[in-house]
């Protein structure tokens, strides 16, 4: 089945104002990819949704995908303290249900 790996693998610490790049790699051909944000114990909130390889932008967030590398990235520019939380990617292939990576916990320090 679909295997989804996220990196940094567990956590990332940034100073406020720095940029972040989170990556999601998967074992099969991508149909769609979605990035989520989650506060501790909280609901998952959709950040960006991308069918196939389309780049998506939303404010300080950009997602991009590299089809030949089975990899997609979430770029966060000018990080803010309120960006702290866990970021998860979910991918779908062959019309199957989305599968999730383990998540990356981002901490933005003042």
């Amino acid at each position, binding site marked *: 089945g679909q295997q989804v790996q996220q990196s940094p693998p567990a956590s990332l610490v940034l100073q406020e104002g720095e940029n972040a790049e989170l990556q999601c790699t998967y074992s099969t051909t991508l149909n*769609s990819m979605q990035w989520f944000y989650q506060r501790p114990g909280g609901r*998952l909130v959709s950040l960006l949704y991308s069918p196939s390889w389309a780049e998506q932008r939303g404010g300080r967030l950009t997602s991009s995908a590299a089809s030949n590398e089975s990899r997609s990235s979430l770029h966060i520019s000018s990080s803010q303290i309120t960006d702290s939380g866990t970021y998860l990617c979910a991918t779908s292939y062959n019309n199957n*249900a989305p*599968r999730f990576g383990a998540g990356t916990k981002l901490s933005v320090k003042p």
Partner: protein
Amino acid sequence: DMKVTQMPRYLIKRMGENVLLECGQDMSHETMYWYRQDPGLGLQLIYISYDVDSNSEGDIPKGYRVSRKKREHFSLILDSAKTNQTSVYFCASTPGGAHNTLYFGAGTRLSVL
């Protein structure tokens, strides 16, 4: 207002008891999912429902069953709960199939003692 509602939010049960987790959505979405989230493992897919009485196993269905008798309502049932089913359970819905944005409920934190 587009919403996925999960009840209860918190639940404590003893091993061997039956557990019913409920999920409702007000968007007439066809497809609904149950996931569980454990530290370091992300979300694992338990069951999928494509519409009323059209359910399929996900990656970890053992120990669970589901029921969907109305499009807006999807239940997860644990018959004789086990301690390793302690987890946070999330319900999600999507308009039609996997290639659409997922909408999540707030989750149910289940502890099985």
